[in-house]
Structure formats: C-alpha cells, structure tokens
C-alpha cells in the first residue's frame, strides 16, 4: 500500500517537472503495466488541480485538528490514570512523553510567549592549536582551511576535518577541541575517525597519527565512529579509564560531575580498563548493545548490561532521549545543553523518573512543559536558573 502512496507522490513531482532520475526510473517501470498507464493518463488528462485548490480552502483543517486534539487528550487521560496507579505501586512517577507531546501544541506554548526564552545549544567550539593559539568555531557557510604545521584542517559547516598527511616521525602535535555549555561539534580525525563532541566536553588528539596506537583524551561526552585499523588500535583515555577499540561505533560519557562513566557499544568491540589503580581495577570486553557503567565513587562498582543504544546516541541525531531516568540525571544533561543552573526545592524530586523523547533544538520551555504535564513536578525559570518545586 505504501508503494501506491509513493507512486502517487512521484507522479505529482513528475507533473511539476521536479522528479529525480531515480524517481523517473521507478515511474517508467510502473507505467509498463497498461492498467497503471490508464490511471496515469486519467490523472494527466482530467486535471482537477484548480478544483482541488478551491476545495482545500473549503475544509477547516485547523478546527478539525483542535477537535482531534481534544479527543486524543480524553483518551490519553484514561491511559494516564492507569499508568499512574501502576506507577504508585512501583513507587515511581512515570512521565509518558509520547502522549504528552500532543498537549504541547499552540495552547500550551502561548503561555510561555511572554517569558524570556532560554535557547538550546548550537554547533560551536574552541580549537586550541599546538602553539597555544585558540580559534573560535561556529557554523560557517564558507569552508576555510587551517594550516597546523603542514597539516591541513578543513573547517566546514559540518565541522572540522583533519586531512590525512604523510608525516615524518617527529614528535606528535596535539590539538584540543573544547565545547562550551550549550555547544556541540563534529570532527573528523586524520585517520578518518568521526567524533561527535557533546556539550561541555573536551577532546585532545594528535593532528596526525603515527606509532603503534591512536590515542585521544576525553573529558565529557562523545560518540565515536572509529576508522578500522587493527594494526593501530584506537584508544580513548578518560580520567579513570582506557577504552581500546579496533574499529567500531560507541558512545562514551565521562563527565566529571556525573556519578558514573558510561560506555555504550553500538557496533564492533571495545575493551575498557581502569587506569586509576585503586581497589576496583577492571578489564571488560563489550559486545554490541552492551553498556559498561562504572561508578566514579571510590567503591567504584562496575556493571555491564544490555541496552538500547539509540537512547545513548540520539543526542548526535539532534534528539534528547531519556528512558526511565532520574530527574537529576536528566537535568544534569539539560544544564550542559541549555546553559542553566538547577536548584531543587524538593530533594525527593531528584529521584523522580521520567521518559522523554524530543528534538534538542527546541527552547527549554518545551522541555519544561513535557515534565510539568506529568503533574509530578513544577518548574520555574528565573534568569538562567531553573527551580524544581514541590508539587504538593
């Protein structure tokens, strides 16, 4: 059935002389059937486009949508009640972001129009060159080239790309990419490895790789797509761990102010080992879809579990996704992305658990509405401070 929808769209584009070569090919193939040919001719010859435009104007879509919202809201309410009962038993407060997204339209948004709006982060970072010089990077429409001791660095609207140059054995030069609060940045290293650096993070790396391994240092969070090279293992160092990979995609969250360092493997294989040499030293090999959680506290418990990796890499696809996470963990992330301070009036609320899936380039008000609509927290924004208030 979806093929019929698709072919309809292609015919539309064809009639507007706006179809791609691939689409023309599909259309041509579809038209070989004489019945299809008839359908096509009838659309082509009984052109009703004028009539359509007129008819569209007669239909009150806005009103229909309001009606639709009301009806889904009523249904959502019943679902919500059941969920609430279940949540009470489990001692959790569940926010079902899915249903709540519906409530976020027009009516709720207008409440916030009068307030000042806290904007989400954007693509920005600072590049520290080997000689100590600092470059501010933002979105750019014009590609430019930075020359770092003979190594070409391309600066484009999708981030930095280090060109792979043959280098002599001389000492490695290191650059550092720093994202501020509310910043994120993309980078391609000289070996072709792709890195997405999340907000308030720092990555130090050589401008070209030589020697027996490829080592970079991370504070904060990054997603890595490591270029395959078994001869030269890729190693990410954090304050307390080394993650060694051959060629793989994984997310590593190592914020100093978080309680845990979390490695999530999407594909390939990695080996993580502790480097801080205390009692809880470990070496762990991960399989795809496994996650390693190491508590940063001294006791340092180590857990490996199966996870849905989408939840941990969605940030690089432009979404904020949390699944049954404590409010504190969620707001720690928000702090970095929206550049806000968080105050808890009600200590217990730190442990309330929520699920959210929303685009990350929205103003903070959208995020707040989602949480508030669950009826379990109340939030107030004052300047750059977000206060979580008790609901009772």
């Amino acid at each position, binding site marked *: *059935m*979806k093929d*019929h*929808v*698709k*072919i*309809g*769209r292609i*015919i*539309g*584009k064809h*009639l*507007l*002389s*706006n179809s791609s070569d691939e689409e023309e090919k599909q259309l041509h193939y579809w038209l070989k059937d004489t*019945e299809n040919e008839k*359908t096509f001719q*009838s*659309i082509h010859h009984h*052109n*009703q*486009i*004028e009539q*359509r*435009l007129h*008819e*569209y104007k007669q*239909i009150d*879509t*806005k009103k*229909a*949508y309001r*009606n*639709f919202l009301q*009806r*889904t809201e009523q*249904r959502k309410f019943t679902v919500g009640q059941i969920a609430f009962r279940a949540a009470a038993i489990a001692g959790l407060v569940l926010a079902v*972001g*899915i249903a709540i*997204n*519906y409530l976020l*339209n027009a009516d709720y948004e207008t409440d916030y129009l009068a307030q000042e709006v806290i904007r989400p982060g954007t693509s920005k970072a600072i590049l520290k060159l080997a000689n100590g010089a600092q470059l501010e990077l933002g979105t750019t429409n014009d590609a430019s080239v930075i020359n770092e001791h003979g190594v070409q660095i391309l600066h484009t609207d999708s981030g930095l790309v280090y060109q792979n140059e043959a280098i002599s054995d001389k000492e490695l030069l290191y650059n550092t990419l720093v994202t501020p609060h509310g910043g994120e940045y993309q980078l391609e290293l000289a070996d072709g490895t792709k890195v997405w650096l999340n907000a308030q993070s720092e990555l130090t790396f050589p401008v070209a790789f030589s020697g027996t391994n490829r080592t970079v240092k991370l504070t904060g969070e990054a997603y890595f797509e490591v270029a395959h090279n078994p001869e030269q293992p890729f190693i990410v160092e954090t304050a307390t761990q080394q993650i060694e990979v051959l060629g793989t995609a994984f997310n590593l969250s190592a914020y100093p102010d978080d309680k845990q360092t979390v490695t999530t493997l999407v594909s390939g294989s990695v080996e993580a080992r502790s480097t801080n040499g205390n009692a809880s030293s470990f070496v762990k090999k991960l399989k795809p879809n496994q996650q390693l959680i190491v508590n940063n506290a001294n006791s340092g418990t180590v857990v490996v579990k199966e996870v*849905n990796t*989408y*939840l941990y890499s*969605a940030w690089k696809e432009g*979404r904020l*996704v949390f*699944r049954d996470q404590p409010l504190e963990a969620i707001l720690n992330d928000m702090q970095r992305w929206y550049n806000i301070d968080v105050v808890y009036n009600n200590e217990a609320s730190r442990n309330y658990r929520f699920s959210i*899936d*929303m*685009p990350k380039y929205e103003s903070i008000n959208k995020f707040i509405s989602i949480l508030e609509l669950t009826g379990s927290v109340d939030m107030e924004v004052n300047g750059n401070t977000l206060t979580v208030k008790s609901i009772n």
Partner: protein
Amino acid sequence: MSKHQSDILSNKYQIKHYFEEWFPGLVIFARQFIQSSTEAEDIVQNAFIKLFENFEEEKNILAAKGFLYKTIRNECINILKHETVKRKHSQQTLLEVSSETYFLNKMIEEETYSTLTNAINQLPEQCQKILILSLNGLKNNEIAEDLSISINTVKSQKKRAYKRLKEQLKNVYQIVSFASGM
C-alpha cells in the same frame, strides 16, 4: 524501547504537521466514496485517532499514510453498505467503489493531487495561476494571452515557480525520510 519505537515517537511528535498537511486531501478522498462532507470529515478524523492508537504497527510515514487511506476506505464502504438500502444507491455503484482497483486508483490519484496542491499552495498567487494553466497544457503564449501579460513574464515566473517547487519538494522528501528513519 526498540529503535523502531523511537522512530515512531518522532513521528508522533510531528503529528500536527502531518494532520494539517494530509487532512484536506483525505477528506476529498473520502468523498470519492460518500457524498456528505461532514461525514467524510468525521471519518478522516476517526482514522487519525486510530492511527494515533496503532502507530506502533506502522513502520514509516508512507505506511502510515497507507494505513489512513485503507481505514478511511473501509469505513466509507461500511457506511455505503448500510445505506445502499436506505438511500437507494444502486448495487452496482457499491460494487464498483468497493473494488480494490477503484480504491488503489483513487489513492494514487489523491496522493498525486495532494503533492501538487501542497506544493502549489505555497507559491505566490501569480506563480500559481501560471503554473496551473501550464499544468492544464497551455503553451506560454496562450498563458500570456489568458492573463494579459508578456511572454517574458510568463517565462520568468515559470522559472521562479519551478525553482521554488524544487526546494519545496526536496523539503517534503527530507521530512519524510527523517521521520521514517531511513
């Protein structure tokens, strides 16, 4: 939560966008089966609610739209069956409109028209007029005569229209492929 369900979350988030873009076309589609506009609008709204409740089964946006077409058509046929007796619809009409071929043809036709309509609706008025006449098969000089403007204006306006449409339609496809997680 599987990757699959996550895609759907992002679809659900965009439901307002899709509702507004699809609703008028689907109402017109429903009217290919039943006469009453009010009834047609109700049926389309119900179909959206059904989609909202069953979205988990839909893999992407084209499939979601297919689901809507099918739901609307089935509901229309149900009503028709009831009314065949009451409103003296001939048995033959019912047979014709309940055939699979009729359904698929109307679906393709509607999808073509909503693609055209949504794209053209975004253009400035003058561009719209020229494009519609051109789609009706008129030559540039005929369009110029029809609208009492010069041929050069027709040509330049047409060029502008196609350029804007290109962006427009590209955009439509981007949204689609994003939402379906392709």
